[in-house]
Structures are given as structure tokens and as C-alpha cells.
């Protein structure tokens, strides 16, 4: 025990040093799901996600466009959204910078040599319903006016501007879009609650409000997770404390439990940060399983009257759990290596803490007896038959198990958000959900690459300087070819000198245009543009991203890797069990295998898909489940059974609560762990494998054990 204490102090000191070192450098935790697995374009995808993280849209739907504008103005004022484009201000800013601005349609005509058509259209515009927007002294063909008009729809492709808001019409329904950039999660939640209130009230007849975009999903998930964590953690803690009290009939186990869990987490976090400067947040979520393992060590060492009395099963339990997680250390996915290191270091900490703890208190070695001990000599065929039928029924569900890599299996938005996204998807002409990430050395270069690739993103609003120069040359040709005739027709003179400048994307000062630039280029160099499904580019600087497909690939890779490693874990476990238990290893191994199959079957019956996250739960299940068998068989007495039962119930109270969460990932993990632990516990009974006497006295237990060993030797 003294050695255990020294090793534990050294471990804690090392963990503290590692943490202090990282704290000095600044602790960083990766929270992006896309960072879980490095895929071909995961860097670009993460940039795309980071750029869009705070963006959201409010989609207003109603029968009257005027009404929608009024609602939008009220919302803008109430939530200080500033979503409308002040087109008047933008036009004033543009006025001295329109030299190279020509609409895409006019540019095509000029390039095709259709100068007459352009001149005719210019004359029509000059005398038509909409007067020039800029001075005609420098721009007699009103090409800047034409550009400004086309820019309106380019600001939001497929839409036109009304009073500064993009609007569109589908059948008898009108839609108005409010683009909100840089929304905080609190404000997003406030807006959503307001929108849901309005949609459910009388005002819904005039306008319905839908919230779309990543920020609203994050806000809703965060608030729901906070609510669930608060409620479920309180229930879990109360249940675990109550179960401990029922086992020991005292609260004196609490300090030991708290210290053991605390030490386990401290050592685990220290080890994690020592090797990984920026670990993923999922490691900590998965690491919560340490609590279950630490509870096991405390209960067994305390109920036996000190860890020394259960040193052998405790060590076997640690060794098998380590063997279970060790293969994950060799995973090619960093998050898996992190999970393994975290759990293994934490387990070692909990084990050493259990050994180092000097047992004291009246409850040590005194597990409360069951109220009515079973009668001596009771056989258990009924249990074996019942459990056998249950296991067979559960296993039958395996044929219904589905494996899913679909992002929808990991996140499903609520009805309100899903409705909004569906509507926006139907109204979005780019629809497919693909993005082109254009990587130039400067924003100007990215703009040129976008133009060369034929995409209409930022360059459709602000052309590159090169394209503006080309436009000037085309306009010169127009003047040369049609100038005289046009002067004769309209009375406007051709300017001798153009005093206007170019519009430079890198130095935009107008707020509305700045917003447009930021929406396409959140980081200032690259441009991210929605692109059609069929878009392809040979230019290596243009990367086509399909976030949905990329997420699917990532989850598939995680699943396959976890699956392979689970087989290796089982093999490692089998080797270790042979070393520990020789011929009897199958009794232990079959329990783990059976629990795995039954849990998979139950997932099949419940229609919960097998995902990379539920698969990771099988590692925990194997580690914890094997502990039940090891302890049950180490000393087959009612006290041991009772300790194992309460240890199982505490883990169930901790992990099973996850099954009541809204988030599909944690719900799936909760269900998997709950059934996994239940079947592992069921398989840990001797009665499950053979008919034997269940006794209440240690002597009889010894006798039973001798019988067992004789039976296993085939005597």
C-alpha cells in the first residue's frame, strides 16, 4: 500500500506539472466535430463551418409583401438586427468608383460584339421607367446603373430587393429574407422564442417567421443540453448517493468516492494534456465513463474492508479494462487515442487511490445484508431459463441492426427549425448544399480565381480589378463603335476623360458591401461560394466541398476504425483472461461476447442505429461488464453479490440517464450503455451458465466454488 501511495503521489505530481505547463501556454480544447477525423478537406470544412458558425437567417412568409416588410422592420428594431441593406448609402459610396463596373449580362454582350444591342438598351433605360442612378456625364451608356440593378439580385441570387430586404414570390406566398451575421447564442435563442410565440399567435395569419442557419441550431442544442445536464446530473448524483447509502447504510463512503473520482479525473486530464496540446471535447464526454469504473473500485475495496483484501480481483479488473482500451492507443484517429489515454490514466489513478486509501469508518467491511436472505440450497433453474429466454429474444434483434453514417443519425433538429430549413432549401436556387472554397494568396487573387472558374459569388457583386480593367477596354470599344449614333439619338456627349475610380474588394468601406464581403470571405483571403451540384474545377485552388458527404465519410471512417479496434480489444482481453483464469477463461469471455450481442440486438429492436459513438460504448461495456464477472466469481457470497449489484445500479444511474437526453448521440450512448451493463451484469451470474447452489455462508460459497472448479475440470 505504501508503494501505491508513492506511485499515486508521483502520478498526481506529474499530472499537475503537465497541466501547469499547458495552462502557461493557454489551455485549448477542440470543439469542432469535423476535427474528430482528418479527411481530405477537413481543414477547409472547418474553416467553412467556423465562418458560418454565427450566421443565421430569418425567413418571413406571408401573403402580403408590404406586411412582411413591416414585420421585418419591427424585428430589426426589437432585436437590433440591422439586416436591411441601405441601398441608397451603397449607391452613394459606389458613385465615384463605377468605372469598371459592368453587369455580367452586358459584359457578355460586349464580349460577343453585340454593341448595337447594348446601345439600344442604354437608350431605353435613359428614357424608360427607371432613371439613371449615377451621373451620365462619365457614363452615358448607363452601364453603372445597369450594374447596380443587377447587383440587387446578385446580393441574394434568385431574389430581388424590396426596401433593402431580399424578397421572392412562390405562387401566392411571399418570402422575405433577413440575413443576420455575428449573432450571439443568447440572442439567437431569444429570437427563436419570439418567432415561435408569433407563429403560435394570431399574428401568424399575416406572417410566419422561420429561423435558419447554424447559429440557431447551436443555440437550441446548447440551451437544451444545459437544461438536460442540470436535471440529469442532479438525478444521477442523488441516485448514486442513495444507492451507496443503501449498500453501506452510512454516508462515510462519500469522501473516498469523491477523492477517488477526483484523482482519476485529475490524472486523466493531466496525462491527456501532456501528450495532446489541444484535445477534443468528445474525449471528456467519453471520459465520464471513468466515474462508473472508479465507483466499482471504491465499493469493492470498501465493502471488503480494504483494497488489500480484494487486491487480486481489483488488479485483474484494472488489467482487463486497460487491455480493453489499449488498442485504441494505436488508432490512426487522434480522438480515439485521446479517449484511450484519458480512460487508462484515469483508471490507473482510481486504482492507486483505492489501494492508497486507509480504510476507516464503521461501514468498512460491513455491507448491509439483504432483508431476506435466500434460503440455503435454493436452486436457480428458473433464473437460468428466464435469463436465457431474455437473452435469446434480445439477440434476435441483431437481424434488425442498422449501421448509420448519416449526419441525421447524430443530429435531428426540432420541428420548428426543420420547417425553416426545409423552406429555405426549397427557395434557394443553389440548393445542392455544395460549396466551392477558393484559396488565393490574397482576396483579390481569390476573386480572379472565382471569375475564371465561372462561379457567381463575390465577383458577381464586386468584380476583380483585372476584370474591371477588361470592362473599361470593352466600354471603350462600345464608345468607338456606337458613340456617335448614341450621341445623335440621345443628345448625351461622349466623355473625353473618365474621372471615376475602381471598386477594390480589399478596401471596401460601405457597411452593406462590407457585410457582403464578410459573408463570402469570413477570414479575409479565401472565398466560399455555394456552387451547383454538377460544378467541377481543374484548378487545385478551387476545392469543392460537400459538408454532408464529408461528415458521412468522417463518421464511416470513425466507425470502421472503432470496429477493427474492438476486435483487437476482444482478442487482447481473451489473451489476458487465459493468463489469469486458464481453462475457465471462456466463462468470462462468453459473458462479454453475450452482452455485446444482446446489446446490439436491443439496439436493433429499438431501431437505434449503430454509429461510431455507440460502438465506442462497447469498449466501456466490456471493461465494466468484465468487472462484474471477476468480482462475482472472486468470492461468491451474498455480500459480494450485493456490492456488484449496487455497483451495477450506480453505473446504470450514471450512464442510463443519458438515454433520456434529446441529442441522438448521447441518447444512443445512454441506451447502449444501459443495456450493455444490464446484460453484462446478467451474464456475470454463475447460474446463468450452470445449475449450482446459491448459498449465504462463505463456507458454502467455498464449497460451491470447489464444485465449480471440479465441474470445469470435467470431474
Amino acid at each position, binding site marked *: 500500500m505504501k508503494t501505491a501511495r508513492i506511485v499515486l503521489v508521483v502520478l498526481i505530481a506529474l499530472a499537475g506539472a503537465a497541466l501547469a505547463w499547458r495552462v502557461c501556454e493557454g489551455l485549448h480544447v477542440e470543439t469542432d466535430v469535423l476535427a474528430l477525423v482528418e479527411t481530405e478537406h477537413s481543414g477547409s470544412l472547418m474553416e467553412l463551418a467556423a465562418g458560418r458558425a454565427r450566421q443565421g437567417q430569418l425567413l418571413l412568409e406571408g401573403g402580403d409583401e408590404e406586411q412582411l416588410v413591416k414585420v421585418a422592420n419591427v424585428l430589426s428594431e426589437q432585436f437590433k438586427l440591422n439586416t436591411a441593406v441601405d441601398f*441608397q448609402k451603397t449607391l452613394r459610396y*459606389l458613385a465615384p468608383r463605377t468605372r469598371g463596373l459592368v453587369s455580367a449580362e452586358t459584359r457578355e454582350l460586349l464580349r460577343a460584339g453585340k454593341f448595337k444591342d447594348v446601345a439600344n438598351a442604354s437608350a*431605353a433605360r435613359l428614357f424608360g*421607367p427607371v432613371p439613371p442612378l449615377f*451621373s451620365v456625364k462619365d457614363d452615358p451608356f448607363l452601364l453603372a446603373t445597369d450594374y447596380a*440593378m443587377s447587383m440587387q439580385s446578385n446580393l441574394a441570387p434568385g431574389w*430581388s430587393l424590396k426596401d433593402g430586404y431580399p424578397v421572392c414570390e412562390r405562387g401566392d406566398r411571399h418570402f422575405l429574407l433577413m440575413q443576420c451575421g455575428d449573432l450571439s447564442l443568447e440572442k439567437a435563442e431569444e429570437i427563436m422564442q419570439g418567432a415561435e410565440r408569433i407563429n403560435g399567435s394570431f399574428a401568424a395569419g399575416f406572417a410566419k417567421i422561420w429561423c435558419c442557419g447554424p447559429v440557431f441550431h447551436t443555440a437550441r442544442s446548447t440551451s437544451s443540453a444545459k437544461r438536460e445536464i442540470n436535471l440529469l446530473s442532479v438525478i444521477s448524483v442523488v441516485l448514486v448517493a442513495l444507492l451507496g447509502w443503501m449498500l453501506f447504510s452510512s454516508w462515510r463512503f462519500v469522501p473516498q468516492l469523491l477523492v477517488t473520482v477526483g484523482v482519476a479525473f485529475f490524472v486523466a486530464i493531466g496525462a491527456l494534456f501532456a501528450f495532446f496540446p489541444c484535445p477534443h471535447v468528445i474525449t471528456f464526454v467519453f471520459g465520464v465513463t471513468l466515474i462508473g469504473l472508479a465507483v466499482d473500485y471504491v465499493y469493492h475495496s470498501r465493502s471488503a474492508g480494504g483494497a488489500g483484501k480484494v487486491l487480486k480481483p481489483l488488479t485483474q479488473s484494472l488489467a482487463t479494462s486497460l487491455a480493453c482500451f489499449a488498442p485504441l492507443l494505436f488508432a490512426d484517429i487522434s480522438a480515439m487515442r485521446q479517449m484511450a489515454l484519458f480512460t487508462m490514466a484515469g483508471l490507473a489513478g482510481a486504482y492507486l487511490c483505492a489501494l492508497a486509501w486507509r480504510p476507516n469508518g464503521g461501514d468498512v467491511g460491513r455491507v448491509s445484508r439483504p432483508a431476506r436472505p435466500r434460503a440455503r440450497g435454493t436452486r436457480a433453474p428458473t433464473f437460468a431459463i428466464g435469463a436465457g429466454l431474455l437473452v435469446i429474444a434480445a439477440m434476435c434483434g441483431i437481424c434488425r441492426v442498422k449501421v448509420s453514417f448519416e449526419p441525421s443519425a447524430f443530429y435531428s433538429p426540432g420541428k420548428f427549425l426543420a420547417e425553416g430549413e426545409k423552406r429555405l432549401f426549397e427557395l434557394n436556387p443553389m440548393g445542392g448544399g455544395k460549396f466551392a472554397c477558393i484559396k488565393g494568396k490574397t482576396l483579390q487573387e481569390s476573386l480572379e480565381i472565382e471569375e475564371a472558374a465561372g462561379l457567381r459569388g463575390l465577383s458577381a457583386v464586386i468584380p476583380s480589378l483585372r476584370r474591371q480593367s477588361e470592362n473599361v477596354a470593352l466600354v471603350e470599344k462600345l464608345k468607338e463603335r456606337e458613340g456617335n449614333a448614341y450621341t445623335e439619338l440621345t443628345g448625351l456627349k461622349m466623355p473625353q476623360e473618365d474621372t471615376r475610380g475602381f471598386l477594390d474588394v480589399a478596401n471596401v468601406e460601405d457597411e452593406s458591401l462590407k457585410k457582403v464581403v464578410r459573408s463570402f470571405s469570413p477570414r479575409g483571403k479565401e472565398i466560399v461560394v455555394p456552387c451547383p451540384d454538377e460544378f467541377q474545377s481543374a484548378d487545385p485552388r478551387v476545392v469543392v466541398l460537400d459538408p454532408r458527404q464529408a461528415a458521412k465519410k468522417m463518421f464511416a471512417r470513425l466507425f470502421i476504425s472503432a470496429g477493427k479496434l474492438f476486435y483487437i480489444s476482444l482478442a487482447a482481453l481473451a489473451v489476458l483472461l487465459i493468463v489469469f483464469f486458464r481453462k475457465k477463461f471462456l466463462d468470462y469471455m462468453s459473458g462479454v461476447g453475450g452482452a455485446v450481442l444482446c446489446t446490439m440486438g436491443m439496439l436493433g429492436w429499438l431501431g437505434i442505429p449503430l454509429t461510431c459513438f455507440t460502438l465506442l460504448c462497447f469498449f466501456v461495456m466490456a471493461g465494466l461488464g468484465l468487472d462484474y464477472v471477476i468480482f462475482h466469481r472472486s468470492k461468491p457470497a451474498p455480500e459480494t453479490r450485493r456490492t456488484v449489484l449496487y455497483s451495477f445500479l450506480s453505473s446504470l444511474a450514471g450512464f442510463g440517464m443519458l438515454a433520456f437526453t434529446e441529442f441522438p448521440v448521447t441518447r444512443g450512448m445512454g441506451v447502449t450503455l444501459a443495456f450493455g451493463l444490464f446484460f453484462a451484469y446478467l451474464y456475470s451470474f454463475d447460474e446463468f451458465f450452470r445449475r449450482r447452489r446459491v448459498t449465504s455462508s462463505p463456507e458454502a460459497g467455498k464449497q460451491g466454488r470447489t464444485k465449480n472448479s471440479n465441474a470445469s475440470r470435467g470431474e
Partner: protein
Amino acid sequence: MGRSVITGVGNNNIPQPIVNSVHEREEQLRGSTNFIIRDMHNTITIAGNHTDWFK
């Protein structure tokens, strides 16, 4: 949509004129710094002071 009327570039549906000369257009715009024209869908605002646009 409004835009198809305004940017009649390249098609044959050039809108009928609402003024007959550039002089008439100049007269129409005179004295207004915030001349707002609404067509079916769009609100157009003149950029800047246009009093010297045609001089």
C-alpha cells in the same frame, strides 16, 4: 420582375419610353436629391446630387 424591365439588355422587349428626350429626363430629376422610384418590385434611389449629371 422589375429587373427584366430595367435590364432589357439583349432582348427585344425594350420598354416604351416614359420621357421623350434627355432634356425631359433632366427636368424630371431637377431639384430632387433623394428621388425614389418604385417599380413592381424594386425601390431605386438616386445616388448623390444629380443636378449636374447632364451638364
